[in-house]
């Protein structure tokens, strides 16, 4: 096996191992969404539509909460769009690596670009120095399939699901994001971006809301990291 093939094989094994925890998150939280959707008055078909078409965890929960209290559709749609505006950053970050792929392939991969898929894809790209299309598909499907299957299971049998906090699984999502973020720190610029991103997001979350805070952290952190880049240049 050549050096490049061996590196690809190693990186893919790492991707699969990293994704195991993400599978667990998707199964548990997807199940909770299915149950919440049913409690909120959504039919099974509607719950599936939210998980497969909208396909964005936090926004789905927010939308159901707003449906329950009778919020008008335009307000719900606007909130969902604002909640998911951070995906612009994910897409922009991945875009330089996907530029050589066909338009159809980019359009399809973009559909699967959730928080978790972005985290797995970015770590995989950082290990290889390039996009691996099979790896990117795997990262997206790793979320999409268990999320949708467990949405159905949760709708059908949600009352039997355990509360994630009782078994410590409520920290798994944050642990995955933190672990993947730290894994991307390869130099001082990335470390500064991480620290400033965290600090500014927490500060913004205290005065604004969490979704806006993530955007602010994601925008300000790289600016701080760039200060080091400019000094080095």
């Amino acid at each position, binding site marked *: 096996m050549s050096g490049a093939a061996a590196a690809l094989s190693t990186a893919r094994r790492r991707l699969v191992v990293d994704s195991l*925890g993400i599978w667990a998150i998707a199964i548990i939280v997807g199940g909770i969404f299915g149950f919440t959707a049913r*409690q909120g*008055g*959504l039919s099974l*078909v*509607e719950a599936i*539509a939210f998980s497969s*078409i*909208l396909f964005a965890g936090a926004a789905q929960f927010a*939308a159901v909460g707003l*449906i329950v209290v009778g919020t008008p*559709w335009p307000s*719900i749609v606007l909130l969902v769009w604002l909640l*998911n505006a951070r995906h*612009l950053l*994910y*897409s*922009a*970050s991945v*875009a*330089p*690596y996907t*530029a050589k792929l066909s*338009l159809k392939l*980019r359009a399809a991969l*973009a*559909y699967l*670009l959730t928080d978790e898929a972005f*985290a797995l894809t970015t770590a995989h790209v950082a290990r290889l120095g390039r996009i691996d299309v099979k790896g990117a598909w795997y990262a997206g499907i790793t979320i999409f399939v268990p999320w949708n299957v467990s949405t159905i299971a949760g709708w059908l049998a949600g009352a039997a699901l355990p509360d994630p906090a009782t*078994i*410590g699984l409520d*920290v*798994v999502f*944050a*642990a995955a*994001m*933190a*672990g993947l*973020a*730290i894994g*991307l720190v390869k130099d001082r610029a*990335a470390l500064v*971006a*991480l*620290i*400033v*991103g965290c*600090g*500014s*997001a927490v500060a913004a*979350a205290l005065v604004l809301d*969490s979704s806006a*805070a993530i955007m*602010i*952290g994601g925008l300000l*952190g*790289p*600016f701080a*990291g*760039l200060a080091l880049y400019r000094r080095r240049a």
Partner: protein
Amino acid sequence: MNNDLLSADLVPLAALGGLGTYAARALPMLVPGIDRLPPIFLEYLRLIGPAVLGAIAATSVFVQGGAFTIGPEAVAVFAGAAVGRWRGNLLLGMVVSVLVVLALRATIGS
């Protein structure tokens, strides 16, 4: 509790929400020439990953109910991230986070 399987009244709402979500995910990837940006822009884009993932984790554990908090969750996530980085194993780090948060909640409460 809704026992209706097939009602589709809210499917258009999911589609409208999905439209803007997909636009956010797709537009930068579909814009031609993004790989030919000046190096400083590409460096900025590279740094978005650690910044935004760190921001998600930090706001999840440090901000609870609109207030700054350092609780078992923050300690557990930090410990798990440190172990994951040390051993080069994300899954191990996540397991450590779960064990630490359970241990802390059992000893000092949540």
